[in-house]
């Protein structure tokens, strides 16, 4: 228990140092960006339900965060809380401005995930980056580009069956890694 608290404190201190470094030199913002990108994106994507909108808002969040970083004051909360605060404001603005609120129908509100759900999604997005290259490419083309297996096979010069197997192994890999990360 104490070890966990120490680890948490160490992590907080490390993040604080990262923030102070980024406040002095914006180039050091890269570490904060890499550490928090998936969480911010998952938080927004869960609420807007569209990749394009989620990417736009995620970009806005990080632009605002970088612009306001000199005024950021450390109050003991994780940096992601500040980022998610910005995201929540932007989502609120977006919904208020939106004439057609199709993205905020009741179903979407019900689907807004819990903190665990967001963490799990963020971890899944990070795990995709750790897949073997051929599996990662199939996942990207299949879910981001939304291509059919035949199109992917043509792009990669492989057979349909091979692509199906790569897709299956990629998802199995992701499942195993999620399980192992949960202990």
């Amino acid at each position, binding site marked *: 228990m104490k070890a966990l608290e120490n680890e948490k404190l160490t992590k907080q201190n490390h993040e604080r140092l990262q923030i102070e470094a980024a406040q002095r030199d*914006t*180039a050091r*913002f*890269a570490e904060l*960006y*890499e550490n928090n*990108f*998936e969480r911010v*994106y998952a938080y927004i*994507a*869960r609420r807007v*339900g*569209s*990749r*394009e909108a*989620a*990417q*736009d808002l*995620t*970009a*806005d969040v*990080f*632009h*605002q965060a*970088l*612009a*306001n970083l000199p*005024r*950021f*004051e450390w109050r003991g909360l994780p940096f992601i809380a*500040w980022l998610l*605060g*910005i995201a929540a*404001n932007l989502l609120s603005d977006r919904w208020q401005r939106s004439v057609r609120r199709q993205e905020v129908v009741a179903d979407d509100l019900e689907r807004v995930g819990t903190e665990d759900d967001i963490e*799990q*999604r963020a971890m*899944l*997005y990070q795990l*995709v*980056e750790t897949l073997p290259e051929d599996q990662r490419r199939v*996942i*990207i*083309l*299949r*879910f*981001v*580009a*939304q*291509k*059919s*297996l035949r199109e992917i096979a043509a792009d990669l010069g492989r057979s349909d*069956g091979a692509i*199906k*197997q790569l*897709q*299956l192994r990629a*998802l*199995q890999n*992701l*499942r195993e890694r999620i399980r192992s990360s949960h202990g």
Partner: protein
Amino acid sequence: MANILLANELDDAIELLIAKRDSSSRSVDLDLGELLGIAAQLRLLPDPEFKATLKRQLLGPTPTPVALPRDVIQPPRQARSGRRDANRDEILPTLFGAGDGTYPVRRGNFAISAAIHVMLIAVVVIGGVWMARQPKIRPHTTSVLLTDIGAYPLPVASEKGGGGGGGGDRDKLSESKGSLPRFAREQITPPAVVVRNEQPKLPEEPTIVGPPELTVPPSSQTGNPISAILGPPSNGTGAGGGIGNGVGGGIGSGDSPGFGPGHGGGTGGGFYRVGGGVSAPRAIYEPDPEYSEEARRAKYQGTVLLWVVVGADGKPRDIHVQRTLGLGLDEKAIAAVEQWRFEPSMKDGHPVAVQVNIEVTFRLY
């Protein structure tokens, strides 16, 4: 073999998932279900190129557009427009501190905002003070019923005065000189110099209409006191009985059973005047006149004096302008007074018509 079947089944389910068709009704085993759950979460997987592009935008000195496969990459909005950069100072801070620290704060903007507010408040205050000191010119009219006309010397009328009476029996000679008969409130028998009916069935003293208390010197000969003809006796060239060249049962050139020129009862012409037993009429409905547009534009002010007869029925008539003002105000005054209603003048318990003056004042302030 089982692996191939699982891969095929998984791909079919993912196809439905991507097409956003409902696949929940399908019965799948636990293994496939777990994989589909992961696949469902991957539907919103961020584009890796987007993450890299955004990082370059944030941290690079000059963001360079990245050639991205059109069918794979949807670059972030900033990359598409190229107009927005990391400096988002145009974002205003949220109200009530909800976004405290989220948005940039420019002290200069607050100063400008405060200055604008001060100027607006100053404009409102100064404008209010100025308006208070420069009141809008509003027309105001007052109307006064003048029952004492002594202070108002009226001009001499170009025509004969009212009142009085006249008569005659169409004789070829003008009426002869004589004294007036007795004044009475009502006339039953008109006076005559030449009596045509010597033996009337109901003899009655000849009278003329006028104040009964008015006495005239007795004389043996009835006639018109102002006639220059002493004889031969004549009732005059008028008609309707009486004496004179008028019409009616009186004496003189008028058309009533009184004495003198004009019409109505009494002597000397005209209507009753207030005083001497004649009560003043009392206005019971006196709407104010309107201001004429010309006079309002010219900021013209003044008083119109009206000559009015208030009838026994309480309605004004025979309205004349005694003192004119012009610019349409005379007409406005007449139009207003025409609508007035009076409690009529009383004489000996009877309503009588009287002549009064009404002063209508037009004023701008």
